[in-house]
């Protein structure tokens, strides 16, 4: 079977789905391949833009300010590559860089409104949501279910951490202790924190309860009322004004469930940021898929790009393969958004790294060839530190239009664009910039692909 389309997007996480949606909304016939679960679905479901400059120890107050600093100090960061576009006047480079990300954030908020993952937050200031460990982290956008109201502003606020019996992903007593110590050090409210365990048994057993079971269960009628009933006693006991839940408040109706709980308990209820398997991550993934298909995009699930045809400097087609069939897809332009190691866009062994679809040439975070590196030598002795692991900054080098380039700095093909974690030059875990770079580069790659297709036409 053969298909013909305007744009093929390879990869169905944040970068690919945004690129696909923008292209589809611009009227392009768009097909997206998704091999399996994306790293976006594993994420906490909050959208980081920039939380820390590389190796810095003070969090950035606002993404806007962070991007200005980044553009001055780290000109090769993926946020900044569009600044090298010769069509942009020198004086307007920074404005363009910051503007592109701001546009993306605004676009994302508007598009996800009304989905199962509505967002809040803005470009002018980072928020500091609480995690399931009791720590906090800077991020730009959170899902509305994660909004903790005035817990850190109201002098008399009392926060109750709620755990669920037999659900090992969240321990409310340690989170409460860690968070309270943090607040005491900061000398700010809440000055009183409590914790409790309630029982929710999707399958009638109080052990091995999973996030997905809980989220689905809480979407059922009557579940929230039952939860509120159990909570009342604990809330009264410590006079809680705010209630923190692990991120399991629902898959479809999380926001409604939060609001209902607030109404029934008279408190502010919110979800903590959690680890995979992450329900907010899955909500975000599903919401992005919804807006993509709503815009007219077509998705091939369970398909990966296994081969391609390139004529001169034009990519003509790729073959999308699933266990049962192979489809050749001709297209005018392509977006590569296959992710890094989790997504499978970059792979490596003791002899070096490689890009998995087109055999493009990966580079290190310093833009030297990564084709023959020994991965262990691009690591830090420290496991978890602001230096991070340099191997996580490897990926593809792109030109100002987000086209992967060869060693000579020229684009590998005129019509292949790349976005997301497959890009080199940033370490999202330490910068707290993962979904922000994915969204912005996906947005940019799509804009460039659209422009290219129009030019050719």
């Amino acid at each position, binding site marked *: 079977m053969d298909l013909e389309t305007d744009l093929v997007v390879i990869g169905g996480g944040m970068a690919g789905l945004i690129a696909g949606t923008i292209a589809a909304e611009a009227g392009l016939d768009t097909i997206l391949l998704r091999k399996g679960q994306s790293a976006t679905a594993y994420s906490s479901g909050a959208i980081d833009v920039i939380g820390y400059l590389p190796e810095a120890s003070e969090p950035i107050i606002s993404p806007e300010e962070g991007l200005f600093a980044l553009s001055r100090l780290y000109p090769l960061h993926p946020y900044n590559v569009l600044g090298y576009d010769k069509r942009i006047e020198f004086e307007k480079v920074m404005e363009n860089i910051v503007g592109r990300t701001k546009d993306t954030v605004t676009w994302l908020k508007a598009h996800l409104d009304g989905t199962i993952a509505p967002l809040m937050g803005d470009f002018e200031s980072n928020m500091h949501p609480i995690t399931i460990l009791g720590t906090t982290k800077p991020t730009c956008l959170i899902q509305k279910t994660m909004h903790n109201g005035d817990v850190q502003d109201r002098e008399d606020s009392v926060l109750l951490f709620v755990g669920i019996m037999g659900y090992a992903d969240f321990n409310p007593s340690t989170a409460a202790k860690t968070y309270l110590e943090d607040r005491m050090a900061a000398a700010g409210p809440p000055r009183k924190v409590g914790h409790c365990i309630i029982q929710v048994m999707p399958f009638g057993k109080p052990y091995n309860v999973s996030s997905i079971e809980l989220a689905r269960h809480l979407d059922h009628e009557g579940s929230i009322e039952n939860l509120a009933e159990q909570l009342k006693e604990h809330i009264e006991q410590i006079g809680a004004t705010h209630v923190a839940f692990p991120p399991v408040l629902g898959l479809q109706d999380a926001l409604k469930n939060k609001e209902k709980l607030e109404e029934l308990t008279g408190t502010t209820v919110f979800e903590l940021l959690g680890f995979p398997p992450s329900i907010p991550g899955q909500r975000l993934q599903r919401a992005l898929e919804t807006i993509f298909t709503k815009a007219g995009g077509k998705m091939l699930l369970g398909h990966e790009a296994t081969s391609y045809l390139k004529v001169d400097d034009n990519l003509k087609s790729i073959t999308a393969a699933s266990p049962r069939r192979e489809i050749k897809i001709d297209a005018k332009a392509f977006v590569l958004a296959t992710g890094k190691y989790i997504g499978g866009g970059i*792979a*490596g062994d003791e002899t070096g790294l490689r890009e998995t679809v087109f055999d493009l040439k990966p580079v290190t975070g310093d833009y030297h060839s990564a084709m023959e590196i020994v991965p262990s030598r691009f690591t830090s002795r420290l*496991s*978890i530190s602001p230096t991070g692991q340099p191997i996580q900054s490897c990926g593809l080098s792109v030109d100002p239009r987000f086209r992967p380039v060869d060693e000579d700095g020229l684009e590998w093909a005129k019509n292949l664009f790349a976005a997301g974690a497959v890009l080199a030059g940033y370490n999202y875990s330490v910068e707290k910039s993962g979904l922000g770079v994915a969204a912005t580069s996906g947005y940019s790659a799509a804009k460039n692909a659209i422009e290219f297709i129009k030019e050719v036409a």
Partner: protein
Amino acid sequence: MTDSKFDVVVIGGGSTGTAVARDCAMRGLRTLLLERDDIASATVGTCAGMISSGLKYRDEPDIMKMCSTEVVYWNHIARHIVMKNPILAPLLDLSDAASDSSYMESYSEHVEERDVPAMMFLTPDATLEIEPMLHPEIIASVYYEEYFIDPFRLCLLQALDARNHGAEIRTYCEVIDFEINDKQEIEGVIFYNRVFGTTERVTTKLVVNAAGPWAHKVAKSAKEELHIRLNKGAHVIFDRRIVNTGITVKAMDGRWVYLFPHENTTLLGTTALDTWEDPDTLVASFDEIEYLLQSMETVLPSIREARIIRTMTGVRPLVPDFKVPERNVTRGYRIVDHGENDGTKGLLSFLGGKLVTCRHMAEAVTDLVCEKLGKDIACTTHEKPLPGNEDDVDIIALSKEYDISLHALERMRARRGTEMLKVLEMTKEHPEWKTTICTCEPIIEAEIRLSIREEFPQTLNDLRRRLRLGTGPCQGTFCTYKAASILSEELGLAGDDFLVDILDFRAERWKGIRQSMRGEQLAQEELAQGMYACVGNLDQSDVDYDLKPWEEGH
């Protein structure tokens, strides 16, 4: 400073030290064991657990005989943590077979008492039927069987049994000095308590130095010179049991290396490099990893396709035979009685030895200790079983009764034998503790809580040694924070300590992951970074984290 009196102080919580403490306690001596880190945290914790027939050391028939006798004892006193592994030595050309056949005879001398078949040659077809991944052009293979023991549980059970017999076991207590009178007799031991940051002193006239690769340093505290030969050995660890049997092959330098299925993983080892470095800082080098892979590749060509999860590195405390390669150094042991040579009276130091002979070593030194104390009490360590060995356990029935997966119960049985019933008993009052915390192993919450309450762990690493927490393919990515919460709850730790525990465990896991980083472990590490740095923000945490010895420098 506290002060108390002991008949004997044992230094070192490895296989030998715990065996000595057990023997001394069982003979009624007031016994104290001091370990600067945790039980089984150094040499024995980095070995493959083989309680070998001594095949490699057939030039020492006494050692081979001792090995066989000891294996019989282990099967009697610790059968719940003993496994028997079939092993194939594939031959690619005749020179492999012809070089030396004396090992077959030496091995066969002890097969009956060890309850294994005689060593035999297998045809290529028979060999490939057992292990289809072997090189198709092998001309034959040698088949034999060896016994293995869980080295962590062995040491812990010896320590617990010693405690049951009245011994005091103190981990995280590092000996820093001895009190020696003007007659050159030991009067006391001074040690630093690393948990509380205090210095303590105990009175004793006898000290057994079983500090393994630190034995010479302990001796130096008594101004004694002890010669030792330290030899580094590294393993590469795979994510599952990738072979049906053990495989041994001669490496390019003629040494034997092996691939052994071990618990839920497979171990490829070992290297042998003389070392003068601080054992705490050692990690496997690129060369060591390649040496092992390339050697095994000659008979198992697809080995590189298997998923490597980490490396582990330990140091052998050999007797100081010089001018011979490591493999020809005796695997016998020596007890140095420093007082016999005008040195410190009351100090006895171990050199050499093997895992399989640790009980024998303990018996010998305890005989000496008793003699010095003027006591005549017989050794019973080879007769009385270690905790959990008492009976068989019907895990199929237990799985139905408690609604816990068979796999989880089998792994629990392999650690605890009949003692697993104590864990299950806890779930009657707390059914939520049936929840799986470490999914790779797997381990349920009740066992973690029981271990914390009864097996004196201080850190997640201690829990790893007791339960195999975080030793599977994900290397603790998913269980670190869950287990840290439980530890924090049980020990009543502060929030900062909870975060330090997480960082400490990630650091220790990373020590071994980093060296062999490739393939799926790249994605695994991206996930770990995403969880602990990106979401948890622990890379920016301001808790008091102490750099580990292998993290210092550049």
